[in-house]
Protein backbone atom coordinates (compact mmCIF):
# COMPACT_ATOMS: atom_id res chain seq x y z
CA UNK A 1 0.00 0.00 0.00
CA UNK A 2 1.09 3.57 -0.60
CA UNK A 3 1.90 5.64 2.48
CA UNK A 4 1.42 8.85 0.55
CA UNK A 5 -0.59 9.32 -2.59
CA UNK A 6 -1.17 12.64 -4.32
CA UNK A 7 -3.35 12.61 -7.37
CA UNK A 8 -3.63 15.70 -9.56
CA UNK A 9 -3.15 18.00 -6.58
CA UNK A 10 -3.19 21.76 -7.13
CA UNK A 11 -3.04 24.47 -4.49
CA UNK A 12 -3.59 28.11 -5.28
CA UNK A 13 -3.31 31.00 -2.83
CA UNK A 14 -5.24 33.79 -4.50
CA UNK A 15 -3.74 33.92 -7.98
CA UNK A 16 -0.45 32.32 -6.96
CA UNK A 17 -0.18 28.64 -7.79
CA UNK A 18 2.01 27.01 -5.14
CA UNK A 19 1.55 23.42 -6.29
CA UNK A 20 0.40 22.50 -9.75
CA UNK A 21 -1.24 19.21 -10.75
CA UNK A 22 1.09 17.09 -8.60
CA UNK A 23 1.09 13.30 -8.82
CA UNK A 24 3.29 11.55 -6.28
CA UNK A 25 3.27 8.12 -4.67
CA UNK A 26 5.48 7.05 -1.78
CA UNK A 27 5.24 3.32 -0.96
CA UNK A 28 5.19 2.10 2.62
CA UNK A 29 8.57 1.66 4.23
CA UNK A 30 10.39 3.99 1.87
CA UNK A 31 12.62 6.91 2.81
CA UNK A 32 11.66 9.63 0.39
CA UNK A 33 13.60 12.87 0.02
CA UNK A 34 11.56 15.82 -1.15
CA UNK A 35 13.95 18.28 -2.72
CA UNK A 36 13.75 21.72 -4.18
CA UNK A 37 14.74 25.32 -3.65
CA UNK A 38 12.82 27.49 -1.21
CA UNK A 39 9.43 28.42 -2.56
CA UNK A 40 9.18 25.38 -4.85
CA UNK A 41 6.01 24.11 -3.15
CA UNK A 42 7.53 21.56 -0.77
CA UNK A 43 6.03 22.95 2.42
CA UNK A 44 2.67 23.57 0.79
CA UNK A 45 2.62 19.92 -0.26
CA UNK A 46 3.51 18.80 3.27
CA UNK A 47 0.88 21.14 4.72
CA UNK A 48 -1.71 19.42 2.52
CA UNK A 49 -0.67 16.01 3.83
CA UNK A 50 -1.40 17.30 7.34
CA UNK A 51 -4.60 19.18 6.48
CA UNK A 52 -3.03 22.51 7.47
CA UNK A 53 -4.09 23.73 4.03
CA UNK A 54 -6.70 22.23 1.72
CA UNK A 55 -6.00 21.44 -1.93
CA UNK A 56 -7.74 23.56 -4.54
CA UNK A 57 -8.06 20.45 -6.69
CA UNK A 58 -7.03 16.81 -6.58
CA UNK A 59 -6.93 14.05 -4.00
CA UNK A 60 -4.51 13.57 -1.11
CA UNK A 61 -4.36 10.21 0.66
CA UNK A 62 -2.06 9.42 3.57
CA UNK A 63 -1.75 5.89 5.02
CA UNK A 64 -4.73 4.96 2.89
CA UNK A 65 -6.91 7.64 4.46
CA UNK A 66 -8.30 10.89 3.08
CA UNK A 67 -5.92 13.61 4.28
CA UNK A 68 -8.77 16.08 4.86
CA UNK A 69 -11.69 14.04 6.14
CA UNK A 70 -9.65 11.59 8.21
CA UNK A 71 -6.92 13.97 9.24
CA UNK A 72 -7.03 13.14 12.95
CA UNK A 73 -6.64 9.42 12.18
CA UNK A 74 -3.76 10.24 9.82
CA UNK A 75 -2.00 12.35 12.45
CA UNK A 76 -2.52 9.70 15.12
CA UNK A 77 -0.17 7.45 13.13
CA UNK A 78 2.14 10.17 11.87
CA UNK A 79 5.03 11.95 13.53
CA UNK A 80 5.57 15.46 12.25
CA UNK A 81 8.37 17.99 12.34
CA UNK A 82 6.62 20.95 10.73
CA UNK A 83 8.20 23.97 9.10
CA UNK A 84 7.84 27.43 10.67
CA UNK A 85 6.67 26.11 14.04
CA UNK A 86 7.28 27.57 17.47
CA UNK A 87 7.57 25.80 20.81
CA UNK A 88 5.70 26.76 24.00
CA UNK A 89 8.20 29.12 25.58
CA UNK A 90 6.89 28.74 29.12
CA UNK A 91 6.78 24.93 29.14
CA UNK A 92 9.74 22.64 29.73
CA UNK A 93 10.99 20.10 27.23
CA UNK A 94 9.53 17.32 29.33
CA UNK A 95 6.10 19.00 29.37
CA UNK A 96 6.22 19.15 25.57
CA UNK A 97 6.88 15.42 25.31
CA UNK A 98 4.19 14.67 27.90
CA UNK A 99 1.75 16.79 25.92
CA UNK A 100 2.57 14.79 22.77
CA UNK A 101 2.02 11.54 24.70
CA UNK A 102 -1.36 12.66 26.04
CA UNK A 103 -2.37 13.93 22.62
CA UNK A 104 -1.49 10.64 20.96
CA UNK A 105 -3.03 8.76 23.90
CA UNK A 106 0.06 6.60 24.40
CA UNK A 107 2.21 5.76 27.40
CA UNK A 108 5.81 6.41 26.65
CA UNK A 109 8.86 7.31 28.67
CA UNK A 110 9.43 11.04 28.28
CA UNK A 111 13.00 10.80 29.58
CA UNK A 112 13.87 8.06 27.08
CA UNK A 113 12.51 10.17 24.20
CA UNK A 114 14.49 13.22 25.32
CA UNK A 115 17.56 11.02 25.68
CA UNK A 116 17.14 9.71 22.17
CA UNK A 117 17.05 13.18 20.63
CA UNK A 118 19.96 14.31 22.79
CA UNK A 119 18.41 16.94 25.07
CA UNK A 120 17.91 14.90 28.24
CA UNK A 121 20.07 17.33 30.22
CA UNK A 122 17.75 20.22 29.28
CA UNK A 123 14.54 18.26 29.99
CA UNK A 124 13.41 20.44 32.86
CA UNK A 125 14.34 23.79 31.39
CA UNK A 126 11.78 26.00 29.72
CA UNK A 127 11.82 25.56 25.95
CA UNK A 128 11.87 29.34 25.53
CA UNK A 129 15.56 29.20 26.44
CA UNK A 130 16.37 26.46 23.91
CA UNK A 131 18.53 27.15 20.86
CA UNK A 132 17.13 26.55 17.38
CA UNK A 133 18.86 23.19 17.23
CA UNK A 134 17.47 22.12 20.62
CA UNK A 135 13.97 23.14 19.58
CA UNK A 136 14.39 21.09 16.44
CA UNK A 137 15.44 18.09 18.53
CA UNK A 138 12.54 18.62 20.92
CA UNK A 139 9.97 18.67 18.14
CA UNK A 140 11.59 15.62 16.55
CA UNK A 141 11.17 13.95 19.94
CA UNK A 142 7.47 14.87 19.95
CA UNK A 143 7.20 13.39 16.46
CA UNK A 144 8.79 10.10 17.57
CA UNK A 145 6.34 9.61 20.46
CA UNK A 146 4.08 6.61 19.94
CA UNK A 147 6.11 4.83 17.25
CA UNK A 148 4.52 6.45 14.19
CA UNK A 149 4.01 4.55 10.92
CA UNK A 150 4.95 7.65 8.97
CA UNK A 151 7.39 10.43 9.72
CA UNK A 152 6.96 13.74 7.93
CA UNK A 153 9.94 16.00 8.46
CA UNK A 154 10.00 19.45 6.89
CA UNK A 155 13.62 20.68 6.63
CA UNK A 156 14.69 18.57 9.63
CA UNK A 157 18.32 19.59 9.65
CA UNK A 158 17.80 23.34 9.57
CA UNK A 159 19.32 24.87 12.67
CA UNK A 160 21.39 21.79 13.46
CA UNK A 161 25.17 21.75 13.50
CA UNK A 162 26.88 19.03 11.43
CA UNK A 163 26.90 16.67 14.42
CA UNK A 164 23.21 17.26 15.01
CA UNK A 165 22.44 16.72 11.34
CA UNK A 166 24.27 13.39 11.48
CA UNK A 167 22.29 12.33 14.56
CA UNK A 168 19.14 13.34 12.72
CA UNK A 169 20.13 11.07 9.81
CA UNK A 170 20.84 8.23 12.22
CA UNK A 171 17.40 8.60 13.77
CA UNK A 172 15.80 8.66 10.32
CA UNK A 173 17.69 5.51 9.40
CA UNK A 174 16.77 3.65 12.57
CA UNK A 175 13.12 4.63 12.15
CA UNK A 176 13.26 3.38 8.57
CA UNK A 177 14.76 0.10 9.81
CA UNK A 178 11.75 -0.23 12.10
CA UNK A 179 9.58 -0.08 8.97
CA UNK A 180 8.50 3.54 9.26
CA UNK A 181 7.93 5.42 6.04
CA UNK A 182 9.93 8.66 6.12
CA UNK A 183 9.04 11.64 3.97
CA UNK A 184 11.35 14.55 4.40
CA UNK A 185 12.01 17.76 2.61
CA UNK A 186 15.33 19.45 2.29
CA UNK A 187 17.33 21.85 0.25
CA UNK A 188 20.47 20.34 1.78
CA UNK A 189 21.58 17.65 -0.64
CA UNK A 190 23.98 15.79 1.61
CA UNK A 191 21.06 14.87 3.86
CA UNK A 192 19.14 13.31 1.03
CA UNK A 193 21.97 11.47 -0.66
CA UNK A 194 22.91 9.75 2.57
CA UNK A 195 19.55 8.37 3.67
CA UNK A 196 17.00 8.32 0.87
CA UNK A 197 15.76 5.40 -1.16
CA UNK A 198 14.20 7.76 -3.62
CA UNK A 199 13.96 11.50 -4.20
CA UNK A 200 11.58 13.88 -5.88
CA UNK A 201 12.57 17.34 -6.98
CA UNK A 202 10.09 20.20 -6.91
CA UNK A 203 10.46 23.35 -8.90
CA UNK A 204 7.91 26.11 -9.35
CA UNK A 205 5.12 23.92 -7.95
CA UNK A 206 5.87 21.00 -10.26
CA UNK A 207 7.60 17.71 -9.64
CA UNK A 208 10.42 17.91 -12.20
CA UNK A 209 12.11 14.62 -11.31
CA UNK A 210 11.32 11.53 -9.27
CA UNK A 211 13.76 8.65 -9.05
CA UNK A 212 16.48 6.97 -7.01
CA UNK A 213 19.71 8.92 -6.70
CA UNK A 214 21.38 6.56 -9.20
CA UNK A 215 18.45 6.81 -11.55
CA UNK A 216 18.53 10.57 -11.40
CA UNK A 217 22.23 10.61 -12.23
CA UNK A 218 21.52 8.61 -15.32
CA UNK A 219 18.69 10.89 -16.26
CA UNK A 220 20.85 13.97 -16.23
CA UNK A 221 22.66 14.65 -19.48
CA UNK A 222 26.01 15.30 -17.90
CA UNK A 223 27.04 11.83 -16.74
CA UNK A 224 30.69 12.75 -16.38
CA UNK A 225 32.79 15.79 -16.90
CA UNK A 226 35.97 15.16 -18.84
CA UNK A 227 38.67 17.80 -18.55
CA UNK A 228 41.42 17.47 -21.18
CA UNK A 229 44.65 19.44 -21.04
CA UNK A 230 45.91 20.14 -24.57
CA UNK A 231 48.63 22.18 -26.33
CA UNK A 232 46.11 24.29 -28.21
CA UNK A 233 42.52 23.79 -29.24
CA UNK A 234 40.02 25.90 -31.15
CA UNK A 235 36.25 25.83 -31.57
CA UNK A 236 36.75 24.10 -34.93
CA UNK A 237 38.55 21.20 -33.24
CA UNK A 238 35.46 20.59 -31.13
CA UNK A 239 33.09 19.99 -34.06
CA UNK A 240 34.04 16.32 -34.33
CA UNK A 241 33.83 15.91 -30.56
CA UNK A 242 30.33 17.37 -30.39
CA UNK A 243 29.22 15.04 -33.17
CA UNK A 244 30.04 11.97 -31.08
CA UNK A 245 27.35 9.83 -29.53
CA UNK A 246 27.08 10.35 -25.78
CA UNK A 247 28.56 13.84 -25.78
CA UNK A 248 26.20 16.52 -24.58
CA UNK A 249 28.47 19.55 -24.61
CA UNK A 250 32.05 20.61 -25.22
CA UNK A 251 33.89 23.86 -24.62
CA UNK A 252 37.47 25.12 -24.69
CA UNK A 253 39.51 28.05 -23.47
CA UNK A 254 42.46 27.08 -25.69
CA UNK A 255 44.51 25.20 -23.06
CA UNK A 256 41.83 22.88 -21.78
CA UNK A 257 38.80 21.22 -23.29
CA UNK A 258 35.84 20.49 -21.04
CA UNK A 259 33.43 17.85 -22.26
CA UNK A 260 30.24 16.59 -20.64
CA UNK A 261 29.63 13.04 -21.77
CA UNK A 262 28.60 9.51 -20.88
CA UNK A 263 31.31 7.43 -19.22
CA UNK A 264 31.81 5.19 -22.25
CA UNK A 265 32.25 8.10 -24.67
CA UNK A 266 35.55 9.23 -23.13
CA UNK A 267 37.89 7.26 -25.40
CA UNK A 268 36.02 8.55 -28.43
CA UNK A 269 36.50 12.13 -27.25
CA UNK A 270 40.27 11.73 -26.82
CA UNK A 271 40.49 10.01 -30.22
CA UNK A 272 38.49 12.72 -31.96
CA UNK A 273 40.68 15.45 -30.49
CA UNK A 274 43.87 13.72 -31.61
CA UNK A 275 42.43 13.17 -35.06
CA UNK A 276 41.75 16.90 -35.25
CA UNK A 277 45.47 17.48 -34.66
CA UNK A 278 45.31 18.45 -31.03
CA UNK A 279 47.99 17.08 -28.71
CA UNK A 280 46.47 15.65 -25.55
CA UNK A 281 48.79 16.15 -22.58
CA UNK A 282 46.59 14.98 -19.76
CA UNK A 283 42.95 14.32 -18.93
CA UNK A 284 40.82 13.67 -15.91
CA UNK A 285 37.20 12.73 -15.38
CA UNK A 286 34.86 13.72 -12.64
CA UNK A 287 31.54 12.14 -11.82
CA UNK A 288 28.70 14.61 -11.83
CA UNK A 289 27.94 15.35 -8.18
CA UNK A 290 24.46 15.36 -6.84
CA UNK A 291 24.96 19.07 -6.32
CA UNK A 292 25.47 19.54 -10.08
CA UNK A 293 22.49 17.33 -10.67
CA UNK A 294 20.31 19.30 -8.32
CA UNK A 295 21.38 22.59 -9.85
CA UNK A 296 20.72 21.19 -13.32
CA UNK A 297 17.14 20.52 -12.26
CA UNK A 298 16.44 23.59 -10.27
CA UNK A 299 18.39 26.44 -11.82
CA UNK A 300 17.24 28.18 -14.92
CA UNK A 301 15.14 30.95 -16.23
CA UNK A 302 11.83 29.54 -15.11
CA UNK A 303 10.27 31.82 -12.52
CA UNK A 304 9.81 30.36 -9.08
CA UNK A 305 6.62 30.47 -7.16
CA UNK A 306 6.83 31.70 -3.65
CA UNK A 307 4.47 30.20 -1.15
Amino acid at each position, binding site marked *: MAAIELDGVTKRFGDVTAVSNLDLTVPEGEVFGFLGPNGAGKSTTINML*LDFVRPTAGEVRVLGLDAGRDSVAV*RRRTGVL*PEGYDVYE*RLTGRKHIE*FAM*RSKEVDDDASAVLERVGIADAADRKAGGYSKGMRQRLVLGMALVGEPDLLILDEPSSGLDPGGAREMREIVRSEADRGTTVFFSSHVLGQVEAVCDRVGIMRGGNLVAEDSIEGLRGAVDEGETLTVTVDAASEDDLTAVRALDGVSSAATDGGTVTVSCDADAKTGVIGALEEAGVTVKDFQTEETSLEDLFLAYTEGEEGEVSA
Partner: protein
Amino acid sequence: MTWTAVARKDFQDAIRSRWVAGLSVLFILLVSAAAYLVRPAPGETISSNAVLNSLVVRDALVTTLVPLLALVVAYKAVVGERESGSLKLLLSLPHSRADVVFGKVAGRAAAIAAPISAGFLLPAVVLLVAPPVNFDVVSYVGYTLLTAILAVAFVGIAVGFSAAASSSRRAVAGAIGIYFLFVPLWGAVRFPLQLYLGMGGGPSWLPLTGQQVLRMLRLLNPTGSFKIVSNAFLQGSLYTGGQVSMQVSATLMLVLWILVPPLLGLLWFREADL
Protein backbone atom coordinates in the same frame (compact mmCIF):
# COMPACT_ATOMS: atom_id res chain seq x y z
CA MET B 1 -11.60 13.60 21.64
CA THR B 2 -8.31 14.97 22.83
CA TRP B 3 -9.53 18.39 23.92
CA THR B 4 -8.63 17.58 27.51
CA ALA B 5 -4.97 17.27 26.50
CA VAL B 6 -5.20 20.66 24.78
CA ALA B 7 -6.95 22.18 27.80
CA ARG B 8 -4.36 20.86 30.21
CA LYS B 9 -1.44 22.06 28.10
CA ASP B 10 -3.09 25.45 27.63
CA PHE B 11 -3.77 25.87 31.33
CA GLN B 12 -0.18 24.93 32.22
CA ASP B 13 1.03 27.44 29.66
CA ALA B 14 -1.36 30.28 30.58
CA ILE B 15 -0.94 29.89 34.34
CA ARG B 16 2.78 30.58 33.90
CA SER B 17 2.16 33.90 32.18
CA ARG B 18 2.65 37.11 34.12
CA TRP B 19 -0.98 38.02 33.46
CA VAL B 20 -2.42 35.36 35.68
CA ALA B 21 -0.11 36.13 38.59
CA GLY B 22 -0.81 39.86 38.19
CA LEU B 23 -4.55 39.33 38.10
CA SER B 24 -4.47 37.21 41.23
CA VAL B 25 -2.75 40.03 43.10
CA LEU B 26 -5.19 42.59 41.69
CA PHE B 27 -8.24 40.56 42.69
CA ILE B 28 -6.90 39.88 46.17
CA LEU B 29 -6.24 43.60 46.67
CA LEU B 30 -9.66 44.67 45.39
CA VAL B 31 -11.61 42.18 47.48
CA SER B 32 -9.53 43.04 50.53
CA ALA B 33 -10.15 46.76 49.91
CA ALA B 34 -13.87 46.09 49.65
CA ALA B 35 -13.81 44.16 52.92
CA TYR B 36 -11.97 47.03 54.54
CA LEU B 37 -14.42 49.64 53.22
CA VAL B 38 -17.51 47.83 54.50
CA ARG B 39 -15.93 46.90 57.83
CA PRO B 40 -18.44 47.03 60.66
CA ALA B 41 -18.43 49.87 63.16
CA PRO B 42 -17.25 48.80 66.64
CA GLY B 43 -19.85 46.70 68.37
CA GLU B 44 -21.77 45.82 65.19
CA THR B 45 -21.65 42.77 62.98
CA ILE B 46 -22.15 42.49 59.24
CA SER B 47 -22.64 39.61 56.86
CA SER B 48 -20.01 38.56 54.37
CA ASN B 49 -22.70 39.26 51.78
CA ALA B 50 -22.16 42.96 52.45
CA VAL B 51 -18.67 42.54 51.01
CA LEU B 52 -20.02 40.83 47.91
CA ASN B 53 -22.73 43.46 47.47
CA SER B 54 -20.32 46.36 47.85
CA LEU B 55 -19.70 48.76 45.01
CA VAL B 56 -16.05 47.71 44.72
CA VAL B 57 -16.76 44.02 44.38
CA ARG B 58 -20.07 43.85 42.53
CA ASP B 59 -19.88 46.82 40.21
CA ALA B 60 -16.20 47.56 39.77
CA LEU B 61 -14.58 44.15 40.06
CA VAL B 62 -17.13 41.58 39.00
CA THR B 63 -19.24 43.13 36.29
CA THR B 64 -16.72 45.61 34.89
CA LEU B 65 -13.21 44.26 35.40
CA VAL B 66 -13.81 40.52 35.22
CA PRO B 67 -15.30 40.58 31.69
CA LEU B 68 -12.45 42.76 30.44
CA LEU B 69 -9.77 40.63 32.05
CA ALA B 70 -11.35 37.41 30.80
CA LEU B 71 -11.22 38.82 27.27
CA VAL B 72 -7.60 39.85 27.74
CA VAL B 73 -6.62 36.42 29.04
CA ALA B 74 -8.34 34.59 26.17
CA TYR B 75 -8.32 36.66 22.98
CA LYS B 76 -4.96 35.29 21.81
CA ALA B 77 -5.82 31.68 22.67
CA VAL B 78 -5.98 30.43 19.09
CA VAL B 79 -4.78 33.29 16.91
CA GLY B 80 -1.70 33.83 19.08
CA GLU B 81 -0.60 30.25 18.41
CA ARG B 82 -1.44 30.74 14.76
CA GLU B 83 0.81 33.80 14.56
CA SER B 84 3.73 32.30 16.48
CA GLY B 85 3.58 29.00 14.61
CA SER B 86 3.00 26.83 17.67
CA LEU B 87 -0.43 26.00 16.20
CA LYS B 88 1.45 23.88 13.65
CA LEU B 89 2.99 21.96 16.50
CA LEU B 90 -0.42 21.60 18.13
CA LEU B 91 -2.12 20.42 14.94
CA SER B 92 0.74 18.07 14.07
CA LEU B 93 -0.61 16.07 16.97
CA PRO B 94 -3.89 14.22 16.49
CA HIS B 95 -6.27 17.00 17.51
CA SER B 96 -9.26 18.06 15.46
CA ARG B 97 -9.81 21.77 15.13
CA ALA B 98 -12.83 21.40 17.41
CA ASP B 99 -10.53 19.83 20.04
CA VAL B 100 -8.32 22.89 19.74
CA VAL B 101 -11.15 25.44 20.12
CA PHE B 102 -12.93 23.73 23.02
CA GLY B 103 -9.68 22.71 24.68
CA LYS B 104 -8.73 26.37 24.58
CA VAL B 105 -12.07 27.43 26.11
CA ALA B 106 -11.54 24.97 28.95
CA GLY B 107 -7.87 25.84 29.45
CA ARG B 108 -8.40 29.59 29.51
CA ALA B 109 -11.52 29.20 31.65
CA ALA B 110 -9.37 27.47 34.24
CA ALA B 111 -6.68 30.12 33.82
CA ILE B 112 -9.14 32.95 34.65
CA ALA B 113 -10.93 30.95 37.35
CA ALA B 114 -7.65 30.55 39.23
CA PRO B 115 -7.07 34.26 39.95
CA ILE B 116 -10.78 34.75 40.65
CA SER B 117 -10.73 31.95 43.22
CA ALA B 118 -7.53 33.25 44.78
CA GLY B 119 -8.91 36.80 44.76
CA PHE B 120 -12.05 35.87 46.64
CA LEU B 121 -10.91 33.03 48.82
CA LEU B 122 -7.64 34.38 50.22
CA PRO B 123 -9.28 37.55 51.68
CA ALA B 124 -12.02 35.27 53.01
CA VAL B 125 -9.50 33.78 55.41
CA VAL B 126 -9.28 37.21 57.03
CA LEU B 127 -13.06 37.58 57.09
CA LEU B 128 -13.39 34.15 58.67
CA VAL B 129 -11.21 35.02 61.64
CA ALA B 130 -12.58 38.56 62.01
CA PRO B 131 -15.22 38.17 64.75
CA PRO B 132 -17.70 40.88 63.75
CA VAL B 133 -18.20 39.37 60.33
CA ASN B 134 -20.93 36.83 59.98
CA PHE B 135 -19.38 34.67 57.30
CA ASP B 136 -21.85 32.92 55.01
CA VAL B 137 -19.75 30.22 53.40
CA VAL B 138 -22.35 28.98 50.91
CA SER B 139 -23.18 32.35 49.43
CA TYR B 140 -19.53 33.42 49.40
CA VAL B 141 -18.28 30.33 47.58
CA GLY B 142 -21.35 30.31 45.34
CA TYR B 143 -20.80 33.92 44.36
CA THR B 144 -17.15 33.17 43.58
CA LEU B 145 -18.31 30.33 41.36
CA LEU B 146 -20.87 32.54 39.60
CA THR B 147 -18.20 35.15 39.00
CA ALA B 148 -16.02 32.48 37.44
CA ILE B 149 -18.95 31.46 35.22
CA LEU B 150 -19.38 35.07 34.08
CA ALA B 151 -15.67 35.14 33.27
CA VAL B 152 -15.97 31.91 31.32
CA ALA B 153 -18.79 33.40 29.22
CA PHE B 154 -16.38 36.16 28.18
CA VAL B 155 -13.65 33.57 27.63
CA GLY B 156 -16.08 31.84 25.25
CA ILE B 157 -16.62 35.09 23.36
CA ALA B 158 -12.89 35.81 23.18
CA VAL B 159 -11.96 32.29 22.04
CA GLY B 160 -14.68 32.51 19.38
CA PHE B 161 -13.10 35.66 17.97
CA SER B 162 -9.64 34.16 18.41
CA ALA B 163 -10.58 31.10 16.34
CA ALA B 164 -12.29 33.08 13.60
CA ALA B 165 -9.72 35.87 13.26
CA SER B 166 -6.71 35.68 10.98
CA SER B 167 -4.71 38.13 13.11
CA SER B 168 -4.66 38.99 16.81
CA ARG B 169 -5.44 42.58 15.91
CA ARG B 170 -8.80 41.46 14.53
CA ALA B 171 -9.42 39.19 17.50
CA VAL B 172 -8.77 42.00 19.98
CA ALA B 173 -10.98 44.38 17.98
CA GLY B 174 -13.86 41.91 18.14
CA ALA B 175 -13.35 41.23 21.84
CA ILE B 176 -13.11 44.90 22.78
CA GLY B 177 -16.14 45.69 20.60
CA ILE B 178 -18.19 43.13 22.50
CA TYR B 179 -16.96 44.45 25.81
CA PHE B 180 -17.77 48.01 24.85
CA LEU B 181 -21.26 46.97 23.74
CA PHE B 182 -22.09 44.97 26.85
CA VAL B 183 -20.42 46.99 29.58
CA PRO B 184 -19.92 50.76 29.10
CA LEU B 185 -22.45 51.26 26.30
CA TRP B 186 -25.12 49.18 27.99
CA GLY B 187 -24.37 50.96 31.27
CA ALA B 188 -24.87 54.32 29.57
CA VAL B 189 -28.11 53.59 27.69
CA ARG B 190 -29.74 51.34 30.25
CA PHE B 191 -31.51 53.95 32.36
CA PRO B 192 -32.63 56.21 29.50
CA LEU B 193 -33.87 53.14 27.66
CA GLN B 194 -35.65 51.85 30.74
CA LEU B 195 -37.38 55.19 31.09
CA TYR B 196 -38.31 55.37 27.43
CA LEU B 197 -39.60 51.81 27.15
CA GLY B 198 -41.26 52.03 30.55
CA MET B 199 -43.31 55.01 29.34
CA GLY B 200 -44.68 52.97 26.45
CA GLY B 201 -42.07 53.86 23.85
CA GLY B 202 -40.49 51.30 21.58
CA PRO B 203 -40.92 49.96 18.10
CA SER B 204 -44.60 49.42 17.41
CA TRP B 205 -43.86 46.70 14.83
CA LEU B 206 -42.63 44.38 17.57
CA PRO B 207 -45.29 42.22 19.17
CA LEU B 208 -43.68 42.92 22.54
CA THR B 209 -44.20 45.43 25.25
CA GLY B 210 -41.44 47.82 26.22
CA GLN B 211 -40.86 45.83 29.40
CA GLN B 212 -40.39 42.63 27.46
CA VAL B 213 -37.87 44.28 25.14
CA LEU B 214 -35.95 45.52 28.16
CA ARG B 215 -35.92 42.09 29.75
CA MET B 216 -34.66 40.52 26.54
CA LEU B 217 -31.86 43.04 26.33
CA ARG B 218 -30.90 42.37 29.93
CA LEU B 219 -30.89 38.63 29.30
CA LEU B 220 -28.86 38.94 26.12
CA ASN B 221 -26.10 40.73 27.96
CA PRO B 222 -23.98 38.21 29.90
CA THR B 223 -23.42 40.71 32.72
CA GLY B 224 -27.21 41.29 32.84
CA SER B 225 -27.88 37.55 33.03
CA PHE B 226 -25.19 37.25 35.67
CA LYS B 227 -26.81 39.95 37.81
CA ILE B 228 -30.22 38.28 37.57
CA VAL B 229 -28.78 34.96 38.73
CA SER B 230 -26.37 36.31 41.35
CA ASN B 231 -28.88 38.71 42.93
CA ALA B 232 -31.42 35.92 43.27
CA PHE B 233 -28.71 33.65 44.67
CA LEU B 234 -27.56 36.13 47.31
CA GLN B 235 -31.18 36.75 48.33
CA GLY B 236 -31.60 33.00 48.72
CA SER B 237 -34.38 32.90 46.13
CA LEU B 238 -32.59 31.34 43.16
CA TYR B 239 -35.03 29.19 41.16
CA THR B 240 -37.64 29.52 43.94
CA GLY B 241 -39.01 33.06 43.91
CA GLY B 242 -41.49 34.67 41.55
CA GLN B 243 -38.88 35.27 38.87
CA VAL B 244 -38.04 31.63 38.19
CA SER B 245 -38.50 31.76 34.43
CA MET B 246 -36.31 34.85 34.19
CA GLN B 247 -33.63 33.18 36.31
CA VAL B 248 -33.70 29.98 34.27
CA SER B 249 -33.46 32.00 31.06
CA ALA B 250 -30.53 33.95 32.47
CA THR B 251 -28.75 30.72 33.44
CA LEU B 252 -29.31 29.30 29.97
CA MET B 253 -28.05 32.51 28.38
CA LEU B 254 -24.79 32.23 30.30
CA VAL B 255 -24.38 28.65 29.09
CA LEU B 256 -25.10 29.78 25.52
CA TRP B 257 -22.47 32.50 25.76
CA ILE B 258 -19.94 29.90 26.83
CA LEU B 259 -20.73 27.53 23.95
CA VAL B 260 -22.08 29.45 20.96
CA PRO B 261 -19.26 31.95 20.23
CA PRO B 262 -16.60 29.18 20.17
CA LEU B 263 -18.87 27.14 17.88
CA LEU B 264 -19.26 30.08 15.50
CA GLY B 265 -15.51 30.68 15.63
CA LEU B 266 -14.95 27.02 14.85
CA LEU B 267 -17.01 27.34 11.64
CA TRP B 268 -14.39 29.76 10.31
CA PHE B 269 -11.42 28.02 11.86
CA ARG B 270 -12.34 24.67 10.32
CA GLU B 271 -12.16 26.12 6.83
CA ALA B 272 -8.99 28.15 7.37
CA ASP B 273 -5.64 27.47 5.72
CA LEU B 274 -3.01 27.84 8.41
